[in-house]
């Protein structure tokens, strides 16, 4: 046993009391779905976890009606202070059941327990706690006196941070006075269903939050439902674009948090050890299943070799394996489909002439795994420099001057995040000014906080989540009040036109 080896230290799943089957959470109760149920599996073992209900269009109708009723009769009549108290309760319940939620998340998603335990779940509690305090202070949100809620919010979230994305969506929506119908991702419904139990414990009025499990067609039925006032989506740019089209002319307020291909820029005056840690955190955090991942490393030419060598050495020490083991750095890829996409794009990277290096680590027999991989000498035109891989794959490019770094960093249709590494503050601020990205991390990466707005430029979407800005997505501004919409009959034709 050398110093890098550890005895296994797995977190026990016995803390979980899972049901064999989960229904849809509508109007405060778990009910049967009318679509064909599906199984959720653990991506690290491919083992069955539970049977999950599948919501069809009829279930969507029932859930939206429940949310509308709850909005009209209950939630819009409550004081901001009382809405806030419910959110505070939820924050506390999440803290109380934190370990359970972390284990469930790692089991269902495949992410290492140290991330679900130390990042995802604490941020979930923080998000509810932060927005709880806003509920009775909306007059101070900078949107005028007594800004009005929108009504029923349809929210569709991805599989990479299942419970955290739920918190990002539900907390500000409820604080602002909206009711919610939320659809978690098909491969990661588990923690949303545990969260539904938390809502029951919190005695949140029935119908204020409804959770519908299902696949893409459930999501499409939800965002295109005529009685929805707000649509919030986090996921791929392709789906985001389809939603922007299908909601056009409907007057639904839309916020989109989509893909990214972030540049992580390392200047030769950067603290190299910290930069290497930051690069690793930037792309290998959560197996690279992060929309704001630093997937393009732009390193100044004169330190290129040194940085890449150190990076390889560091990656060789990362432990890949059981997500529930506290020593694990790299967990499982979330699904076979995603693994296939990562493999395909990596093969394309190799075929397009980049130098591939993969950390030498044992891959477990079952489950979906991809060892940390670096592509060096990647050209700007290569697909692995342009397309979102959403996996533990880093593309390395070089630059000589700050101007070249900026131009390469901005050379993408995306604009979600970026990183800058330098010991010179004035250089960092000047470069940050020029980058077209919504979140810029200087000498750090992948930091999140409920007080800090998050969201993209260009094709990474629009609207912000987090902070005071995150409230604007769920409240009426003077522009929403004067927005044009087409009559309902015309909307149906539009929906048909763009969804066919």
């Amino acid at each position: 046993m050398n110093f890098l080896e550890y005895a296994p230290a797995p977190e026990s799943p016995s803390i979980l009391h899972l049901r064999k089957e989960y229904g849809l959470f509508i109007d405060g109760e778990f009910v049967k779905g009318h679509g064909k149920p599906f199984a959720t599996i653990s991506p690290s073992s491919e083992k069955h976890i539970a049977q999950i209900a599948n919501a069809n269009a009829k279930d969507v109708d029932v859930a939206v009606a429940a949310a509308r009723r709850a909005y009209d009769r209950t939630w819009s009549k409550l004081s901001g202070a009382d809405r806030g108290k419910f959110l505070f309760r939820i924050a506390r319940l999440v803290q109380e059941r934190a370990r359970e939620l972390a284990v469930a998340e790692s089991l269902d998603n495949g992410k290492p327990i140290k991330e679900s335990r130390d990042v995802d779940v604490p941020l979930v509690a923080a998000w509810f706690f932060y927005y709880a305090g806003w509920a009775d202070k909306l007059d101070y949100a900078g949107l005028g006196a007594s800004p009005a809620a929108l009504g029923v919010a349809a929210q569709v979230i991805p599989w990479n941070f299942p419970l955290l994305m739920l918190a990002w969506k539900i907390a500000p929506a409820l604080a602002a006075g909206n009711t919610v119908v939320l659809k978690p991702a098909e491969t990661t419904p588990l923690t949303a269903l545990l969260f539904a139990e938390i809502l029951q414990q919190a005695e949140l009025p029935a119908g204020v939050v409804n959770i519908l499990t299902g696949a893409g067609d459930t999501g499409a039925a939800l965002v295109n439902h005529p009685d929805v006032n707000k649509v919030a989506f986090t996921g791929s740019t392709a789906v985001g674009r389809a939603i922007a089209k299908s909601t056009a002319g409907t007057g639904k307020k839309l916020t989109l948090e989509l893909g990214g291909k972030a540049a992580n820029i390392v200047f030769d005056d950067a603290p190299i050890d910290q930069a290497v840690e930051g690069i690793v955190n930037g792309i290998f955090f959560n197996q690279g299943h992060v929309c704001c991942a630093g997937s393009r490393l732009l390193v100044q030419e004169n330190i290129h070799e040194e940085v890449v060598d150190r990076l390889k050495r560091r990656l060789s020490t990362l432990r890949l394996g059981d997500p529930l083991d506290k020593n694990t750095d790299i967990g499982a890829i979330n699904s076979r489909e995603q693994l296939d996409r990562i493999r395909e794009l990596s093969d394309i990277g190799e075929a397009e002439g980049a130098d591939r290096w993969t950390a030498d680590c044992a891959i477990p027999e079952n489950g979906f795994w991809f060892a940390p991989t670096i592509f060096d000498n990647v050209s700007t035109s290569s697909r692995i420099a342009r397309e979102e891989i959403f996996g533990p794959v880093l593309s390395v490019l070089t630059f000589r001057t700050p101007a070249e770094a900026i131009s390469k960093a901005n050379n993408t249709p995306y604009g979600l995040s970026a990183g800058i590494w330098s010991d010179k503050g004035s250089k960092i601020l000047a470069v940050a000014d020029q980058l077209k990205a919504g979140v810029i991390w200087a000498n750090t990466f992948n930091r999140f906080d409920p007080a800090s707005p998050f969201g993209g430029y260009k094709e990474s979407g629009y609207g912000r989540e987090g902070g005071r800005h995150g409230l604007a997505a769920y409240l009426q501004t003077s522009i929403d009040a004067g927005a044009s919409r087409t009559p309902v009959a015309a909307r149906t034709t539009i929906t048909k036109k763009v969804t066919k």
Partner: protein
Amino acid sequence: MSRLAVPKTYKLYIGGKFPRSESGRTYEVATAKGAFLANAAKASRKDARDAVVAARAAVAGWTGATGYNRGQVLYRIAELLEGRHAQFAGEIASSEGISLAAAAREVDAAIDVWVWYAGWADKYVQVAGNGNPVSGPYFNLSTPEPTGVVAIVAPQASSLLGLVSVIAPAVVTGNTVVVVASETAPLSAISLAEVLATSDVPGGVINILTGSPAEIAPWLASHADVNALDLAGAERLDWVDLQISAADTLKRVLTPVTGVPAPSLDRIVAFTETKTVWHTKSLI
């Protein structure tokens, strides 16, 4: 014998210059009663694309200017507009068929809109931005920035006030614009271009096209180098199709408004992007 007047040739305004439409097309602009006023240029797809190129080229300089500087430029527009008050009032009265007094009030309002927005240039960042108290040793600041190139369909009525009410909120932050003027009353838009050309507004920051919005707007809505689309005056167009087309590159879109949009900070913020910068604080 009275003096024979020298009528003006109305052209487009692209990149700080006054070209005719590359298509060679014009259309007749008449008074409300149908009398001939002028031939306006009828902009083509190529003109629209040229205008986008000019607008994109002007982004870096205009965005890079200080808020104080942009504010002064916008205020300068108000000064020069004031100086040509009578000309604009006359032009509006004849093309919109309203009284000279009503036209004069519209010019007054248009001037005041410039002054109102001018004052925002060095303040909107303070009001729409935020310092964020994150849980950790980080300096964290959110600031709004201009989104880039904004394509605008100007309100069809109140030709000058409508135009000014959509251009000013977009350019005050550092965006550049391509705007399609009122189809039936385009003359004051081109006269405004003469004011812009002499108000220290850098060429390309505001580009004005005259012609058919129904013909030009689809090319702007689908243009991949346009960041945002203001459909303020598109109420009578197939604007939902324009919004759908804009979604291909996820443009920020404002839907049509009835009449003239009131001055508001929301219109300014609508075409900005919030950038949040995290910077580590060292442990001492």
